[in-house]
């Protein structure tokens, strides 16, 4: 055990081999990702894998380390949501099996594609489609003022009984009655097979891209299973602790988890998530959501530019892609922090004036 620990800290840790500038980059990027995750409740993690790919890490290392980072972030966020009573442990336990099989299928696909030399390109293309699609959806909703595409901060104050089950979820609950049926929090009765199908599909995506999959799983839980929004957020995170932990373990066995990447990212993101989460109390999310959508769209362009750079062998284009990904995230995180401070000062001034 001692010798394996020494091996780990000697070779796998990687922090010791890393220059201070890379360490600062990962801590800083983690901080930015944490602010975004804490504020929007999703979305930070899927910037990590593309950034690692652009930094020329092996696809399996980029995806595996991205997944290990998601695992660590989920542990921290679940502890907080547990304190708020927003975790449905029964639903989480049922989803773990489907998600785990999905993640393993996704992971196997990455290694297979890597063996035939297509992993980097296909993962990048998948990211372009995903970031572009989700970015377009969030931007459209933000401009329409629907309030979707992230955690509704006002909604988290409501009681679970006040949530209406979406029509699509009601229809699925009425039509798919394959036993066994389970009753979830919010008095939702749904087939185990629906839950497993949702879990498998999102797990496949997680395993292939190294993301938590919350941006797909949360809407799926709400619209396909009919779970109240806060419970969907908390349960999603709880479930990622197990599926992400196992996924990280499997990637780790293949040498795909680099602690030198994960540890500084987590160090920054844990602090950033606290700041982002605190900012939700003082900032109206709808005003910033449009920037979040824009950031995802820029991210899609950046991954595309980076991939073209790799394809034609242009380090300049690869660097442009990397700067775009990190720059877009930094701009949105800075907008959140700036708006929070302005809002805090305005509130304080108003209170001071009223007191006078």
């Amino acid at each position, binding site marked *: *055990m001692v010798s*394996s*620990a020494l*091996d*780990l800290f000697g070779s*796998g840790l990687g922090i010791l081999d890393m220059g201070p500038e890379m360490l600062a980059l990962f801590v800083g990027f983690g901080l930015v990702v944490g602010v975004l995750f804490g504020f929007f409740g999703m979305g930070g993690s899927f910037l990590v894998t593309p950034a690692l790919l652009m930094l020329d890490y092996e696809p399996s290392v980029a995806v595996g380390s991205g997944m*290990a980072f998601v*695992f*660590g*972030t989920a*542990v*921290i966020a679940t*502890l*907080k949501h547990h304190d708020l009573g927003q975790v449905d442990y029964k639903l989480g336990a049922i989803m773990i099996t489907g998600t785990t*099989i999905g993640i*393993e*299928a996704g992971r*196997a696909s990455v*290694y*297979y594609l890597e*063996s035939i030399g297509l992993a980097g390109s296909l993962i990048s293309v998948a990211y372009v489609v995903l970031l572009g699609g989700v970015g377009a959806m969030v931007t459209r909703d933000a401009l329409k003022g629907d309030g979707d595409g992230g955690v509704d901060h006002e909604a988290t104050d409501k009681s679970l009984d006040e949530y209406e089950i979406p029509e699509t979820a009601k229809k699925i609950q009425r039509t798919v009655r394959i036993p066994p049926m389970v009753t979830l929090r919010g008095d939702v009765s749904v087939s185990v097979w629906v839950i497993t199908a949702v879990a498998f599909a999102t797990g496949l995506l997680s395993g292939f891209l190294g993301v938590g999959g919350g941006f797909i799983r949360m809407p799926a839980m709400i619209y396909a299973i009919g779970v109240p929004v806060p419970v969907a957020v908390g349960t999603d995170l709880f479930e990622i602790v197990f599926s992400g*932990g*196992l996924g*990280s*373990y*499997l990637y*780790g*066995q*293949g040498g795909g*988890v680099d*602690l030198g990447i*994960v*540890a500084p990212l*987590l*160090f920054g993101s*844990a*602090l950033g998530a*606290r700041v982002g989460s605190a900012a939700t109390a003082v900032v109206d999310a709808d005003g910033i959501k449009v920037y979040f959508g824009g950031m995802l769209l820029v991210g899609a362009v950046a991954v595309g530019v980076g991939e073209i750079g790799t394809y034609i062998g242009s380090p300049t284009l690869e660097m442009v892609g990397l700067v775009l990904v990190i720059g877009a995230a930094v701009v949105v995180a800075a907008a959140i922090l700036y708006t929070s*401070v302005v809002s*805090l*000062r305005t509130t*304080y*001034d108003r209170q*001071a004036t009223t007191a006078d």
Partner: protein
Amino acid sequence: MAGLEIPSWDPQTALLIGTILLEAIVLYAGYAGLERLLGPHLMRLLVGGDRSGQ
């Protein structure tokens, strides 16, 4: 590597993932403590030290 795998016990990988788990828990508790300790002071700094003294 291409097929689905049943995870086998690997102490070194378990230690690696355990280290990440431990780091996450330590960071959660550590930052919570820091927030309690430095939060009020930081808030005074953010809203303006002189104004908070009014």
